[in-house]
């Protein structure tokens, strides 16, 4: 009985040590991968900062209105520094996944596989959001300028409506791309977009009758300079 207990104990310890011995190379490999990841991450970050500096990325962000959004959000870092940090953490995350995979634990491997399958969707969703943000800023500024130059009433509201519509569209597209609550997102988008359009139509129809009349008069009665009251040729 005693011999049997000692054998069992030794067997269990042996199995444990065997497990540890089997696991240790994987752990060591994982640690090495993490160290390598940190080095690659730092190198990518440094290179990205230099390249973005040469490409005048901060100036581009200034002109696209991205910097002012960061300032409003109380983010003091330069956009180039932010992007370089983002790349650093992406590299670290990738190496972390590889390190976890080196441990050869089935559950972790499955999770990693699922994450890598989802990653392209996540990246394209973020890309859609970024493009939507830039496009929204650009188009709303164009609308604001056109409204001011045409002496239209409430130019800022026109610009904001344009920005809001593009934001809704890009947000819905991004969520759809990321496969987050697809059916709810599509339904909500249709309802929201329809409601905004209806509100605009009502607002224009009820509140902007005179504007619409003037716009139509200007369009169809081009020869009627009295609509504007200027004969200036400017050039």
């Amino acid at each position, binding site marked *: 009985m005693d011999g049997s207990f000692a054998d069992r104990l030794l067997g269990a310890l042996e199995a444990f040590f065997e497990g540890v011995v089997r696991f240790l190379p994987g752990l060591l490999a994982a640690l090495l991968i993490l160290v390598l990841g940190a080095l690659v991450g730092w190198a990518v970050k440094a290179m990205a900062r230099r390249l973005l500096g040469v490409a005048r990325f901060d100036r581009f962000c200034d002109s696209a209105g991205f910097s002012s959004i960061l300032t409003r959000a109380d983010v003091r870092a330069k956009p180039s520094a932010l992007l370089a940090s983002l790349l650093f953490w992406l590299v670290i995350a990738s190496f972390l996944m590889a390190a976890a995979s080196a441990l050869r634990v089935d559950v972790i491997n499955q999770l990693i596989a699922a994450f890598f399958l989802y990653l392209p969707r996540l990246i394209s969703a973020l890309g859609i959001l970024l493009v939507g943000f830039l496009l929204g800023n650009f188009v709303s500024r164009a609308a*604001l300028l056109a409204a*001011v130059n045409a002496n239209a009433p409430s130019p800022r509201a026109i610009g904001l409506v344009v920005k809001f519509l593009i934001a809704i569209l890009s947000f819905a597209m991004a969520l759809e791309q990321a496969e987050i609550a697809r059916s709810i997102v599509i339904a909500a988008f249709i309802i929201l977009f329809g409601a905004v359009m209806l509100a605009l139509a009502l607002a224009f129809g009820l509140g902007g009758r005179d504007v619409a009349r003037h716009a139509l008069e200007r369009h169809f009665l081009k020869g009627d300079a009295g609509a504007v009251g200027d004969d200036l*040729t*400017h*050039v």
Partner: protein
Amino acid sequence: MNDAAPLLEPLRARLAEIGEVDVLVGIPSYNNAATIGHVVRAVQAGFAKYFPDQRTLLLNSDGGSSDGTPDVVQNASISDFQTLLAAHPPRAVHRIVTPYHGIPGKGSAVRTVFAAAREAKARACAIVDADLRSITPEWIDLLVSPVLRQDYDFVAPLYHRHKYDGTITNSIVYPLTRALYGRRVRQPIGGEFGFSGRLAEAYLEQPVWESEVARFGIDIWMTTTAITGSFRVCQAFLGAKIHDAKDPGVDLAAMLTQVVGAVFALMETHAGSWRDVSGSIPVPEFGFEYTVGLEPVRVNVERMVGIFASGVQELAEIWERVLDPETMAQVRALAAVSGDAFRFPVGVWVRAVYDFALAHHRRAINREHLLKSLTPLYLGRTASFVLETAGSDANDVEEAIEAVCLEYERMKPYLIERWEV
């Protein structure tokens, strides 16, 4: 040499048939059937009256008109030269109507004229707009003779215009071009020009024909290239300029964007030429100056001031990225006054234009947005100018424009200091 020569084969063949010419007049056109007949007859009479012994060619470079413009050009003629001349002209006027090759726009049409001038070895050339109603045969003499008989390379037009006509020219293009390049060319975007065969050749060599210059901005480009290329420049007094009424639907902001964008783009190209220039010198003038009666111009000052005030309120976020803080504060203060008391001082205006040029240079925001955001400021300055000169005659107004020019020259160091910073 630029190999993408814009001469289509039928045009080349026709030019070969005609041979060399002494004088070539080009008329770029697009749907100008209502007015181009008069222009063609004026050119024809100008040839007969002032260049009877020269070999002459009239070239209509058309952008695909759908209103029968080419037919009008082919058929326009002076039936009875005796009303104009003592004797019938000894030489026939060669006439060519051709479509042009390249990007649609006046620039491509003018390029065809340059290429034809090179092919025909023309000694002196002129370009006149197809929508002119006030052109006379004398215009051809005034644009061509300084080149043919006085060895000038470029003849800019001088017109009498209503005091409120050409406000972009008077408040931006003329004073800025003058301050930058140091030559007082009064109508740098006039539309009518005379030039030598040598200059036409130099124009053709420039690598601009696939750029915006081919579409619009050809007038200021020609003037600036002539000045910066050290060609001999003069101007000729042509009288009143009356042209076909522009489409009232044409957007002022788009027009301002095109014109000012072309001037700013040329500032980039010729930065090396203008940085060392200070002050300005007059250019020689030809022609007999006389006063002309001009039709009154209606101006809606209230609307202009309204758009300016709206700009101050709504575009502050954009202007803050463009204007110097001191200029921005001054602009804000201007909006507090409305009605007849409204004024936009010339000093603030010139600083604002220089700030916009600097913002364009360093690409502070999208360039089209930048230029469109200038419209309310321009309208504010124009309204102020109208109010300041309400009781002034043409001479007083010209003095006011001279004061604007001097302010541009005085403040040029402000621009130079900040250009490369």
